[in-house]
C-alpha cells in the first residue's frame, strides 16, 4: 500500500479513513492517521489558559548570514548562470532566497524558502516567450504594441496578486507555510483605480492609497490557518510622506545653492561652454550623485517610518505581535555605505551589501509570542505556480514590499 498524504484530509475524512483501515495489516498507516487526527482535533480543544491576559514572550530576530560566505555562493552562481546563458539563474535565485530565508531566525526557528528551481525556470521560460512575442509584435505595428500594452496594464493587478500568493506560499516558518488570500477585485481597485484617481487630486490622496495597499498586502497574509491583522493609521502615512518631502526639499536647497554658485563661476570662466571639457563631465556626474543622495535619504525616512508603523500594528491573535524599531539614521547610514561600497568595488561588494541590509532589518525586529504560537495548523491549498511572478518580473511590474 502506497503512503497516503493525509495532509489534505479534513477531520471527518480522517476519521472515516481510520475506520476503514485494517490495523493489523497496515499498522504504520494507523499510526500516521492517529497522529493526524490528534493534530486536527487539537485546535478544537479548549486552551488551558486562565482568564488573566497572558504575558507574551519577547524574542529577537537574528540574521546568521555572512558576507564572505554569500560572496562565494553569489559569484559561483553568477558564473554558472552566465555559462548556461541564464538557465541556471533559476537555481541561483532559489539558492539566494534559501540563503536569506534560511539564515533568518526568530525565537530559535529558521524561515524556509520552498520554491523549486524547475518552477522558477518554467515561469521564466513563459515570461521570456511572452516578452519576446511582445517585442516582435510591437515591432510589427505600433497599433498591435498599443493593444498589448493595454492588455498588460489590464492584467497588472492580477499579476501582483498572483505574485504575492506565490511568494507567501513559498515561505515557511516552523514547517508551516504562509499564505495570501487577497482577491483580484480588491487588487484592481488598489493597484489600478485608486492610483489613477489620485492623479486628479494632484497625488494628495496617494498616502491613503499606499495605506490601503499595505492593508491589503499584510492584512490578507496568513500563517498556516491564522490570519494577520493590521490596524494602520492614515495619519502616519501622511507624516511619512510629508516628512520625506521636507527632508528631500531641505537637502535639495542645501545642495543646490553651492551648486548654483559653482555653475555661475564655471559659466563665467567659460569651461562649461566646451562640451568635451572635463568640467562638463564632472558636473554631470556630480548632479547624478546629488540626485541619488537626496532620493536615498528621503526614501529612508519614508521606509523606516512606515515599516515601524506597519510592524508595530500587525499581529496574529493569540500567536504573535510584531515589533519594529528601525531607526531613520541607521537605515540612511546603511544605504549610503552600501552605495559607496557598490560604487567603490564596481559591484563586487554586492553580497556584503545584501547581508548587511538583512542583518539590520532583522536586528530592528522583535516578536512577542503568545501561548498559541505552537498550535498553528498548516493550511492546505494547491501549490501555486511561478508564472505570474516571473512574468511580472520580466515586464518590471513588481511591487516593492517594505
Amino acid at each position, binding site marked *: 500500500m502506497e*503512503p497516503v498524504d*493525509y*495532509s489534505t484530509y479534513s477531520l471527518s475524512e480522517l476519521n472515516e479513513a481510520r475506520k476503514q483501515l485494517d490495523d493489523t495489516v497496515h499498522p504504520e498507516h494507523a499510526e500516521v492517521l492517529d497522529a*493526524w487526527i490528534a*493534530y486536527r482535533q*487539537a485546535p478544537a480543544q479548549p486552551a488551558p489558559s486562565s482568564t488573566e491576559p497572558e504575558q507574551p514572550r519577547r524574542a529577537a530576530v537574528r540574521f*546568521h*548570514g*555572512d558576507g564572505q560566505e554569500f560572496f*562565494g*555562493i553569489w559569484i559561483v*552562481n*553568477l*558564473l*554558472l*548562470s*552566465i*555559462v548556461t*546563458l*541564464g538557465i541556471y*539563474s533559476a537555481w541561483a*535565485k532559489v*539558492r*539566494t532566497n*534559501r*540563503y536569506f530565508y*534560511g*539564515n533568518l531566525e526568530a525565537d530559535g*526557528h*529558521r524561515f524556509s524558502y520552498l520554491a523549486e528551481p524547475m518552477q522558477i525556470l518554467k515561469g*521564466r521560460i513563459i515570461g*521570456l516567450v511572452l*516578452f519576446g512575442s511582445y*517585442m516582435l509584435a510591437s*515591432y*510589427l*505595428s*505600433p*497599433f498591435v504594441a498599443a493593444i498589448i500594452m493595454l492588455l498588460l496594464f489590464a492584467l497588472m493587478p492580477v499579476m501582483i496578486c498572483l505574485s504575492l500568493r506565490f511568494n507567501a506560499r513559498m515561505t515557511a*516558518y*516552523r*514547517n*508551516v507555510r504562509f499564505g495570501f488570500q487577497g482577491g483580484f477585485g480588491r487588487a484592481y481597485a488598489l493597484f489600478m483605480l485608486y492610483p489613477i484617481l489620485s492623479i486628479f487630486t494632484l497625488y494628495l490622496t496617494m498616502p491613503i492609497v499606499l495605506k490601503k495597499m499595505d492593508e491589503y498586502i499584510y492584512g490578507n497574509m496568513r500563517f*498556516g490557518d491564522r490570519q494577520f491583522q493590521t490596524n494602520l493609521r492614515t495619519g502616519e502615512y501622511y507624516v511619512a510622506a510629508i516628512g520625506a518631502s521636507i527632508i528631500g526639499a531641505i537637502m535639495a536647497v542645501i545642495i543646490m545653492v553651492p551648486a548654483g554658485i559653482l555653475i555661475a563661476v564655471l559659466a563665467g570662466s567659460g569651461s562649461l561652454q566646451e*562640451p*568635451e571639457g572635463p568640467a562638463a*563631465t564632472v558636473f*554631470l556626474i556630480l548632479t547624478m550623485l546629488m540626485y541619488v543622495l537626496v532620493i*536615498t535619504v528621503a*526614501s529612508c525616512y519614508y521606509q523606516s517610518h512606515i515599516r515601524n508603523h506597519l510592524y508595530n500594528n500587525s499581529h496574529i491573535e493569540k500567536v504573535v505581535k510584531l515589533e519594529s524599531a528601525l531607526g531613520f539614521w541607521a537605515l540612511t547610514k546603511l*544605504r549610503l555605505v552600501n*552605495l559607496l561600497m*557598490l560604487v567603490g568595488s564596481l559591484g563586487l561588494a554586492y553580497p556584503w551589501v545584501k547581508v548587511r541590509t538583512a542583518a539590520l532589518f532583522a536586528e530592528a525586529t522583535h516578536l512577542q509570542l503568545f501561548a498559541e504560537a*505552537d*498550535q*498553528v*495548523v*498548516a493550511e492546505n491549498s494547491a501549490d501555486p505556480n511561478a508564472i505570474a511572478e516571473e512574468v511580472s*518580473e520580466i515586464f518590471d511590474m513588481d511591487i*516593492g514590499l517594505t
Partner: protein
Amino acid sequence: MSEMLEGVLYAPGSSKSCQVWLQLEDGELRLLVEGNWHSYPKPSLSSAPALGRMPREIKLPDGGMVQAPPSEELNLWLDGGKLSARLAALETNKWGILASILLAPLCLFGVFKYVIPALAISFAHYVPQAYINTASEHTLLALDESLLAPSQLSETTRQDYLNYWQGTVSQLGLSAHHYHIQFRHAEKLGPNAFALPDGTIVITDQLVALLEQDKEVLQAILLHEIGHVEHRHSMRLIAQTLASSVLISYLFGDLSGMADLFAGASTTLVQNQFSQELEWEADNYALQQLDKLGQDGESFAKAMEKLASLAPSSSMERWLSSHPMLKDRIDNARQ
C-alpha cells in the same frame, strides 16, 4: 554505526516542534523521538543541496521536517554525488570561488560580445519575409501619420535621383525592385535617411538640401542604409535587445533600489554598443560597395562631415549614443 546527531523535528501540519536524534544508516534514516525509534527509507526523503553553514532541512514523507546542524557526514549522506550538490559544493571551494571571480567577467564579456550577436544572426534568418514586409509597411504608415509629410521636392529632382540610383543598383548587381526610394518632408527629423527592413529607403527633403544635390554623397549614405537591410540589422537588433535585457534582468535581477538603476544603465550601454557595432557593419558595407563602383571613401567621409557640422559631440557620446562617433567614421572612410 555512526554517531547520533541532534536535531529538531517539526510535526507535519502544525507549528509544533520537539527535539530529535538522528542516526544515518545505509539506505535509511532513523529518528529517535520521545523514546521511540522511527525509520525512513532514504528515497522517501528529500532535501535541497547544502548551502553555506545553514542547518539542513530534511522533508519526511509524512509532511514533517527535520532540521539538523550541517556536518560533512550529513551533507555527504544527503547529497551524495548528485549534480546539483556538486555544483553547490563549488560555492565553498576556494578554487571554485577564485575561478569564478576571474571567469565571470570574462564569460560575461564573451556572451555579450560574441554569443548574443551570433545567436541574433541566426535568429534573423528565421524571421519570415512576410513578417518583415508587414512590419515595414506598418512602420512607414505610422511615420507618415506622425513625423513625415509628402516631399516638397520637384518631380524632376526626384526622378533625377531615382535614375542615378537605378544606375548604381544595376552596376552593383542588386535587385532593383527590392530597393525603392521614398522622398519625404520631415520638419522634426531634419536631415536623415533610413531603411526599413523590406528595402524601402526613406530620404528626407532636409537631407537632400543639406547635401546640396551632391549625388555621390547621397549614394554613399544610401549604400550605408542598404548595408542595414542586407545584413538584416533590424531583426538582429530586436534579438539582441531581447536577449541582453532578459539576461541582465536574470543575472542581476535581484538587485534592488539604486542598484537597479545601475543595472538599467548597463542595459542601455550594452544596447548602444550593439547598435554601434551594426552601424560599423553598415559603414563598411557601403565602403566596400563604393570600392566596387570604383570610388574611394571620400564621398562617404563628406557625408559624415556634413552631419558632423550639424551637432557638436562630446566624449560622453561614445557610451551614450546609438551611433559611433562621426569623427571615427570619417577616419574609417578615409583609410
